[in-house]
């Protein structure tokens, strides 16, 4: 087969496979990346980016990030840019097609950098971090390309100065990486010594001086000036993790000229070289791709919550639990459990199904402390009817990570839920300047002006009935799960709605607090018009009546199944009492039928660490 044709196939097959993998396995991840970004078609907003070094690159990157709203489109753009990077590198540095594969290394590294972020995605605070590195890399390639075209020492000197200032303003770090790559390319070329010397001296000077010169115009910390444009996360310690892959990718163009002795020669075994480069690259990408099942399930469930697709949220955990059934030590994370509970509540199924899922508190596979509230705080607080806290955390997140579509949406919904219509309109005005959220903004605007419509429209139909308590000050320093439990167990309300009482009873069940249970149970019975208690309320009442040894409560009209399960459960527990140390032991011993009871939850799902 023709060598050029093989090279062409690689240029097509690899991107297509990567694109397919992105769409199949990471669709919700891409949607979450987009939801955490913002691009406004508004000169006032764009102008802010033009005031700081690397701001224009961030702005351009945010412009492209918005297309992830249609995941295949955004992914296609990203993959095309990665492919373009590889092709441009190849054309610039590699004469023999056998070594073309080397040009793919930066693109693989950049792809791996984004797909390996995992939980860091919740705390990325550099705007446009998803497209930024690939755009930055193309900037590096552009610098080398232009330098090659300039034939005179004075032209090179002029370019270096202009690039050092304008390029730094546009792309920050990447402009300097471009100068270093161009210097390496030039120094190893056959060009005049004078040109090389001029270029090297001026490059060093502008790399040192440009940030100092522009620093006066910015409010950055001076130490950050040389790394502006690189992806960053909330904590300083994550810098190594977020910087390294991108710096490594931009170093490849610096190194390639040194390999020109090899890459310019015709290879005897081009296929072998391709395999030797591409296979490890694919392996590297595969290994770095954050594939943790719980992380992916969490992302899917968060996206489902954002889309108000409650069934998808429930089914995600259900499917995962079914698949993990053979793996006895499997536990979901607290986030998955909380989102599942929320979805069950919203579909009115919590009293029948809440404890039929695996419960647990599997630690998230994350390298840094990322509180639950920064991951799903705004979702939980809004849908549980605590809009003040949803509003607060949206603003806290904005303070740390910048404005985003998702935060603006939740701010709007929280404001409408608190009857703060004027400020809701302010957030909607911003969303009006977006490409993909105008329609949502129009719909919300109508709701904003119409109380009756709000009461009937999702998600407000299930939020407004929960905002029925006397306002209180809340504390969530111990985490949002604790705050929610505290809210539903401790908040008194003379105007509680049946929905509020139902959810308060559910949280009482989750708390395993008998007193709280009976208090909320009575309120629930009073406010609802039920004729028959649902399964888990029966199990809880039956259990607590036995624990309290209350004969009257024991003789309530329980289903025979409730009693029979209780007896079986107690018998199993007595039989294996000495073998059970923890939740995993219990999971191994108890059959699914008994694991799906409130009794099992009460005795074994304990001590799970929320965060």
């Amino acid at each position: 087969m023709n060598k050029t044709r093989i090279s062409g196939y690689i240029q097509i097959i690899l991107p297509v496979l990567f694109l397919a993998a992105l769409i199949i396995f990471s669709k919700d991840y891409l949607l979450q990346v987009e939801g955490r970004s913002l691009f406004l078609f508004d000169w006032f907003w764009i102008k802010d980016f033009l005031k700081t070094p690397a701001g224009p690159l961030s702005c351009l990157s945010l412009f492209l990030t918005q297309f992830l709203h249609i995941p295949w489109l955004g992914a296609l753009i990203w993959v095309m840019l990665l492919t373009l990077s590889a092709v441009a590198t190849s054309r610039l540095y590699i004469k023999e097609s056998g070594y073309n594969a080397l040009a793919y290394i930066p693109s693989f590294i950049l792809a791996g950098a984004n797909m390996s972020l995992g939980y860091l995605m919740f705390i990325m605070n550099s705007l446009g971090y998803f497209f930024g590195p690939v755009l930055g890399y193309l900037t590096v390639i552009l610098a080398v390309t232009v330098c090659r075209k300039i034939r005179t020492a004075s032209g090179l000197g002029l370019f270096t100065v202009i690039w050092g200032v304008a390029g730094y303003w546009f792309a920050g770090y990447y402009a300097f990486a471009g100068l270093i790559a161009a210097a390496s390319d030039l120094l190893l070329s056959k060009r005049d010594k004078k040109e090389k010397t001029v270029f090297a001296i001026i490059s060093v000077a502008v790399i040192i001086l440009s940030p100092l010169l522009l620093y006066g115009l910015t409010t950055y910390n001076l130490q950050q000036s040389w790394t502006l444009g690189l992806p960053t996360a909330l904590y300083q310690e994550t810098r190594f993790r977020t910087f390294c892959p991108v710096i490594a990718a931009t170093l490849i163009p610096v190194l390639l000229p040194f390999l020109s002795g090899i890459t310019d020669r015709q290879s005897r075994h081009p296929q072998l070289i391709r395999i030797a480069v591409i296979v490890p690259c694919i392996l590297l990408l595969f290994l770095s791709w954050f594939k943790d099942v719980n992380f992916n399930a969490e992302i899917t469930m968060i996206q489902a919550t954002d889309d108000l697709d409650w069934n998808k949220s429930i089914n995600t955990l259900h499917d995962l639990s079914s698949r993990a059934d053979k793996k006895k030590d499997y536990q979901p994370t607290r986030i998955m459990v909380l989102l599942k509970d929320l979805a069950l509540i919203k579909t009115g199924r919590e009293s029948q199904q809440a404890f039929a899922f695996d419960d647990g508190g599997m630690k998230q596979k994350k390298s840094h402390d990322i509180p639950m509230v920064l991951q799903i705080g705004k979702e939980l607080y809004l849908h549980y009817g605590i809009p003040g806290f949803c509003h607060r955390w949206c603003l806290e997140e904005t303070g740390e990570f910048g404005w985003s579509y998702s935060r603006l949406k939740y701010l709007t919904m929280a404001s409408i839920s608190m009857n703060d219509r004027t400020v809701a309109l302010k957030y909607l005005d911003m969303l009006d300047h977006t490409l993909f959220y105008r329609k949502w903004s129009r719909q919300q605007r109508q709701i904003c002006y119409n109380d009756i419509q709000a009461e009937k429209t999702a998600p407000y139909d299930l939020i407004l009935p929960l905002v029925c308590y006397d306002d209180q000050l809340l504390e969530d320093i111990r985490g949002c799960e604790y705050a929610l439990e505290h809210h539903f167990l401790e908040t008194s309300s003379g105007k509680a709605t049946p929905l509020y009482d139902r959810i308060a009873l559910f949280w009482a069940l989750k708390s395993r607090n008998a007193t709280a249970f009976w208090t909320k149970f009575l309120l629930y019975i009073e406010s609802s018009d039920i004729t028959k208690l649902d399964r888990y309320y029966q199990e809880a009442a039956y259990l607590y009546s036995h624990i309290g040894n209350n004969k009257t409560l024991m003789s309530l009209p329980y289903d025979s199944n409730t009693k029979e399960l209780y007896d079986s459960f107690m018998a199993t527990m007595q039989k294996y009492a000495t073998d059970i140390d923890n939740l995993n032991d219990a999971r191994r011993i108890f059959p699914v039928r008994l694991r799906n009871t409130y009794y099992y939850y009460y005795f074994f799902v304990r001590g799970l660490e929320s965060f």
Partner: protein
Amino acid sequence: MKKIIIPLLVILIVACKPTLPSDYDTAGTVPAIFPDYTDITIPSNIAPMNFLIEEQADAYLTELTSESGQVVIKGNTVSIPKSKWARITKSQEITVRVYCRKDSKWIAYKPFKMSISDEIDPYISYRIIPVAVESYEKLTIRQRNLTNYSEKVVVSNSMIQNNAQGTCINCHYYKNWDTDNMMFHVRHYKGGTILVLDGKLHKVNMKTDSTISAGVYPSWHPTHDYIALSNNKTHQSVHAASHDKLEVIDEENDIILYNTRDNTVSVIENDSSELECFPGWSADGRTLYYVSAHYEAPFGPDRKNQIFIDREKLHFSLYSKPFDPDTRTWGAKELIYDAQAVDSSMTWPRVSPDGRWMVCCVSTHGIFPLDQIASDFVIYDLKDNSYRYADEINSRFAESYHCWSSNGKWIMFSTRREDGVHTRLYFSHIDGNGHFTKPFALPQRNPEFNREFLYAFNIPEFMKEPVHITPRQFASFISSTDATPSKYESKKGE
């Protein structure tokens, strides 16, 4: 050639100049505009008062007329060129008339006036902060030239903090509107109070073993080298669902006097059953006004929770305390406003430069009007200590921090009147009888600025001149200098 070009240019200029319609219907109302600049009083040296016409129409023309000239602007964004603005503001009054073309018919709205009054200090400074409780990385103190739209950073958190260790800059203040003598606090990383004394930078730590905290809310003595400051142990908590988003409460409060000359701190008020705060000097510096709430709860770890529970019982009353600045001796405190008796709470007493008026915030309870929708202004006539609600400047949302211009003719204050969440700056003129004119928003080049801007303005202060120390000088000084501990003077001096 010249003979052709010059007439051509003249024709072009004349053709481009918008002409007012001669045939139109009249509307009986003023047009809806944002910001609301209808029938206001403005300073003669203010930047052009750009605004947006919010009427639905196909075309817009705005005519601004005064005795010294006329300007006609096309379009619904009324951006007035600075040179033309300077010309029309030379007279006493500007009449603004808006014409809108709807369905090929021009409508002339009822004209409104901008009365031109006393000059205002050319500079102001304020904090720009994210509307969050804990995330304050992007906080800056900025200065703005009121005669144009130029805004510059004075100092920024991001220039000081190290990512792992945050910083919070706050409570900037000037002695007699003079930037050669100014101060602000830096909390947490590289913390201390930054003092500029006669143009020279100092960094001090006002926390001593005998005081409960470093200095917080300041008031610089008008004639002597003293700054009265509150000491606060502040906590914040968030409302579950309320227009008041945040509750800010001090577990303990005292008032101290800081001597800038010898870096000493002495106590003014530190009654353990009182929460004393917000000192404010009279114009002659011989009286200190402050507020105080009676509160008794055991000191210890539970006090914080208890005070949050009791928050609606915290009623801050207004007191005055005579002071002799030469001998640094204090007289007995006197109750001026008994908040407990009327179930309210008074904060932020600030006296006009002529000593005649004092404006304070009044709310239902507590110490932090910024986050209380119920907060309004009252104005005291210090001739007889009578007061009234300044309804002409109050709104249904929180009115909070206010300050006087150096000539005492203008008041600047922060308010959430536009959307209930984002604090904005407004100005009002005061006449000899203590009456304010209709307030107007800080003019911006982009009239929609207040709608689009998602940060809040905070702690506005007038200045006669800009701060000359650059942000880099401040940042480098703060980062490289350790705070000098202040010495405690036990003598209370009463």
